[in-house]
């Protein structure tokens, strides 16, 4: 009898484990009620009404400004979409289900970038028609005011950059993310939202192909154009070739001719561009950060990193300051590694220790542990 019970229990556990592994998580987002926050709603609305307007090219905006848009206090921002950006579909996004800005949609980062990592996709932006379809599915056209936020400032930057590239004319990012929103005392909601699909984006996508630099162009221009600077937004260890920074890249180094733009402590942050509270640094602070770098703001700055996330943050910071001599070399170190004959540098190019070779000659074993 005992043996029978044990066998039955084990059998049941195995069937349940198998079934759970093959099924999708349940969607209970629509059943939760709205959460209350500490601040009084009337005070918040009053604050929102006093918020100043911002320029169309302003990217990083305060929670108070976003709240004022939601409350209808910003003229010209009646047609808006708020999106919480993260990886995975809505069912795989616990942060969204736990609480998001009122009316916010969930936006999968894979709606703007490739997820296959193969030679054709290389984690670059998706094809224009695919990005356009995703935008339209959320009801976003070129005239829609888009406000994005998420846990990862680089991931949100990636989506914002993709939207600007596609042609959305007014894209904002909630500065400091949901933490700043909570700190301001504004409400969250847990009910999942879906946008009303639009039919026509209103312009050819991408409207700004110049924001995107292919690997071929990056290689050619960094070798032949003095004013073109390929700016590495990677950690010091990545820049010096001590590690690739990623557990899925086995070789370390940088494209030959690249200059360092700092920005990160690891492959997964943009700490140098952020204050301690997670808000973006000011333009003056950015200039101070770059004061000893081997480029100026008069150069054409093409930012890159591992796969094009971190690079979008300085792009957006300069974009909102009105710079047009900027772009993102999207493929980053990941795509560069796919070409054995591409030139690389390992070490600080200003030092005598810097080694020059090709990707194929690089030693392996440099993946992040």
């Amino acid at each position, binding site marked *: 009898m005992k*043996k*029978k019970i*044990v*066998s*039955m229990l*084990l*059998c049941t*556990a*195995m*069937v349940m*484990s*198998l079934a*759970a*592994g*093959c099924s999708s998580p349940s969607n209970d987002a629509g059943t939760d009620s709205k959460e209350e926050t500490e601040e009084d709603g009337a005070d918040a609305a009053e604050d929102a009404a006093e918020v100043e307007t911002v320029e169309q090219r302003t990217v990083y905006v305060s929670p108070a400004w976003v709240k004022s848009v939601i409350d209808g206090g910003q003229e010209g921002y009646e047609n808006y979409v708020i999106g919480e950006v993260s*990886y*995975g*579909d809505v069912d*795989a*996004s*616990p942060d969204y289900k736990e609480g998001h800005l009122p009316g916010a949609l969930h936006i999968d*980062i894979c709606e703007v970038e490739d*997820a*296959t*990592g193969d030679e054709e996709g290389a*984690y670059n932006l998706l094809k224009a028609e695919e990005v356009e379809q995703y935008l339209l599915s959320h009801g976003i056209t070129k005239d829609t005011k888009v406000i994005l936020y998420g846990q990862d400032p680089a*991931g949100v930057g990636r989506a914002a950059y993709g939207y600007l590239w596609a042609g959305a004319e007014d894209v904002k990012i909630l500065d400091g993310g949901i933490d700043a929103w909570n700190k301001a005392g504004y409400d969250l909601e847990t009910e999942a939202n879906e946008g009303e699909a639009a039919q026509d984006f209103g312009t050819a996508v991408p409207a700004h192909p110049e924001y995107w630099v292919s690997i071929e162009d990056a290689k050619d221009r960094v070798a032949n154009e003095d004013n073109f600077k390929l700016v590495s937004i990677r950690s010091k260890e990545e820049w010096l070739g001590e590690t690739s920074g*990623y*557990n*899925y*890249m086995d070789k370390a180094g940088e494209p030959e001719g690249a200059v360092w733009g700092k920005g990160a402590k690891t492959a*997964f942050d943009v700490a140098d561009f952020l204050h301690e509270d997670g808000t973006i640094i000011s333009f003056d602070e950015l200039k101070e950060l770059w004061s000893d770098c081997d480029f100026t703001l008069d150069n054409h700055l093409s930012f890159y990193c591992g*796969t094009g996330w971190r690079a979008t943050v300085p792009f957006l910071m300069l974009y909102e300051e009105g710079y047009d001599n900027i772009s993102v070399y999207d493929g980053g170190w990941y795509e560069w590694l796919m070409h054995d004959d591409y030139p690389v540098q390992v070490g600080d190019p200003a030092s005598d220790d810097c080694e020059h070779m090709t990707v194929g000659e690089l030693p392996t074993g440099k993946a992040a542990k």
Partner: protein
Amino acid sequence: MKKILFVFLDLLSIAFLAGGYAIQYFTKRKLGMVRWVVFKNKQLQEQMPVDVLKYAAAAFVLILAVFTLAGFLKKKAHRKKPDVVMAIFMAALTAGYLGFTILASENSIRSYYLVMPMIGAAALLQVIRNMIAVRTCKYEK
């Protein structure tokens, strides 16, 4: 002794299934995980003929499972109810493993190449468990 061995094999099977579940769970939720999985897929495809191996492994488990079931059916007079349950479970798990191997792909499930051997290992352990049960049941009262 046999009982301990069965429990050990069952627990190991659960561990493999749980491992497969965990890989798929995090692959769907963590970008870093999916990229590592893509990297591993690429490495596996470069280093070994995975498409040949996966069918060979599935065929091997299937053949063993069929032989085990045949032996089990032959010993009708000696088998007990828990053994029947476990034999049915083995058959279901083997069928699930074959289905996963044939019907799924790297495109439909990113962690395909990592989850598949986990399910295969669980199925194989259950085949071994049932094989032992079949070979030893005649000695029991």
